[in-house]
């Protein structure tokens, strides 16, 4: 069997994205052992939304069997996905949900992802304290789902007060600066809810201010941070958004191309087209294990996991 799968990534501003593409390419190669030839063609560059729509059109022109996309917008692809479906192409979004009824989503529940770490923070603070949040890009769907997630969790704890929420645009240095400003203004905060790479920045400010012992804050999953976490024994916990999501989506795609049917159709999420993957969590309990698994990798390497072919097969009839 031969399948051609197009991978589209519309932003190359973080190493996580390049790792995502690499893992997906490796996953495709792994099908060889099963006697399935999966050829991947990837489009990965900084583009705006129309530019990524053009990615999809290019895939349609090439006649791929499936498209796996990490979309720059949740809703903008509805018309073009409709065209892809017309052309008989399977479309799977990953990492960010899409509203199109012509696609399915295979990835994390971003809201659930935020809730996991918010729960960890709330529990660590024993349900009371002042908390600040450092978020990604305002208006970005993934960010807004995450915000909704932690707000819901903190709302359930009367003792937890969110004293301020700021945006640092998923930029580590901006996260560090934001944390610095927040520490100056709110010297008595107890917890910080911060996402992704910004967490490394925030923790750096916390450590610079000698408050690592007094503050609990969420963490992130790159090796650099795991090392710092281990060395300094930080009071941290991190939900994992593994770059392997695209690889998982690819495995699901191949099985679907083979004509197999999901045991449970993808109907989760706000758009009723999602299939959520499990969300791993890193805390002091499994930190050593995680550290061991990223040993020898470059500093920007993210702790990862993905559905193996077998895991994926288990989801199908």
């Amino acid at each position: 069997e031969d399948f051609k799968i197009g991978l589209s990534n519309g932003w190359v501003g973080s190493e996580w994205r390049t790792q995502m593409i690499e893992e997906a390419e490796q996953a495709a190669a792994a099908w060889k052992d099963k006697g399935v030839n999966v050829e991947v063609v990837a489009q990965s560059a900084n583009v705006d939304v129309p530019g990524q729509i053009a990615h999809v059109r290019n895939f349609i022109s090439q006649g791929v069997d499936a498209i796996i996309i990490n979309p720059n917008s949740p809703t903008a692809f509805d018309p073009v996905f409709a065209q892809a479906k017309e052309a008989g192409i399977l479309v799977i979004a990953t990492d960010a949900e899409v509203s199109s009824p012509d696609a399915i989503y295979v990835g994390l529940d971003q809201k659930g992802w935020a809730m996991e770490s918010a729960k960890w923070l709330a529990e660590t603070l024993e349900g009371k304290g002042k908390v600040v949040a450092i978020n990604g890009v305002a208006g970005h769907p993934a960010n807004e789902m995450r915000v909704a997630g932690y707000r819901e969790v903190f709302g359930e704890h009367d003792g937890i007060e969110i004293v301020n929420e700021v945006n640092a645009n998923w930029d580590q240095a901006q996260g560090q600066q934001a944390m610095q400003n927040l520490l100056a203004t709110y010297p008595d905060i107890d917890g910080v809810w911060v996402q992704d790479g910004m967490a490394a920045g925030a923790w750096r400010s916390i450590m610079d201010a000698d408050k690592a012992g007094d503050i609990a804050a969420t963490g992130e999953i790159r090796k650099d941070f795991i090392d710092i976490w281990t060395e300094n024994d930080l009071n941290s916990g991190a939900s994992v958004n593994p770059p392997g999501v695209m690889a998982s989506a690819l495995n699901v795609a191949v099985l679907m191309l083979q004509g197999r049917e999901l045991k449970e159709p993808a109907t989760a999420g706000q758009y009723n087209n999602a299939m959520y993957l499990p969300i791993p969590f890193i805390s002091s309990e499994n930190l050593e294990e995680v550290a061991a698994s990223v040993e020898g990798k470059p500093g920007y390497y993210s702790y990862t996991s993905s559905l193996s072919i077998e895991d994926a097969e288990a989801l199908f009839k």
Partner: protein
Amino acid sequence: MTSVSTSTRQENQGFRTLLGRFPFLPALFILVVLLVLNGIFEPNSLSFRSLTGLVRTYMALMLLAVAQTYVVYAAEIDLSVGAIASLVNVTIIVLMQNWGGGGLSVLAALGVGVLVGLACGLVNGFVVAALRLQAIVATFATSIFFTGLALVILPVAGMPAPTVFWRTYGGTFFGIPFVFYAAVALAFLLYLFARTRLATQLLAVGDGQQAAFQSGLPVTTIRIGGYVLCGVFAALAAFCITGDTASGDPLVGAKMTLFSVAAVVLGGSALSGGFGTVAGSVIAALIIGLINSLVFFAGTPSHWQNFVQGLAILAALMVGVLVSRRGRA
């Protein structure tokens, strides 16, 4: 010896006259080369369907480039075009939604959208021409403001557009896709604008504000006029974005601003003002789109794509500048 040099001078003269009349010729040439290359690497990319898709997707950038061209005429720049497009996008989406999504409500929302673009242009024109702030910095500041406003109107990307709207944009009438009607309408509009007094006056202001003022031109009004025109075309671009994406996104235009500047230059207009064509900018928008797809069709490994694309755009920019200067120097 003398005769040789005069004949080459005459050839040069001919080339210059040609370029003077049609400054977009170099861009057109690059466009054709890119189309051919795309066709060689992926024959399907020249199919009617693919070309329609290309125009449909890059119509927005074409319009943004046109918008940018009008301010560049007057030696100005607008770093807020993308933000204006985002603001108009969310405004019309929210209005269409609130007004029920019927045909009339769509038209009304589009009307409001044009007004929003116009108002943003007025704001830019006011801060740059009336308050005399430096355009690059001032329009960057207004772009932050417009983005903030867009976030208030639609805090998170996602509200869908009424079906009638995007089905029209993506649809086909009498066998011809809607975007081609739109392209013809645009061409006609641009032709008309090229004959307006405002167009000539913008170019005269771009050649030298002091001289234009001393000639008795209402320079401030003209400059504001340029920004208003820019705002209106940014609004039209937003309609295309909305038609192609069928949804609202408060950040959708942000990345398009710098591409619009690149398109203007690539199309043969001078950033220093006084010289240029909108046709070139339109072609250049397509060039940017074709470069992106060519890089892919040519089989560039994924992590090299951005680099190759950057190099290709830089090279195209250089060619655009060099050739159009030869035409003028």
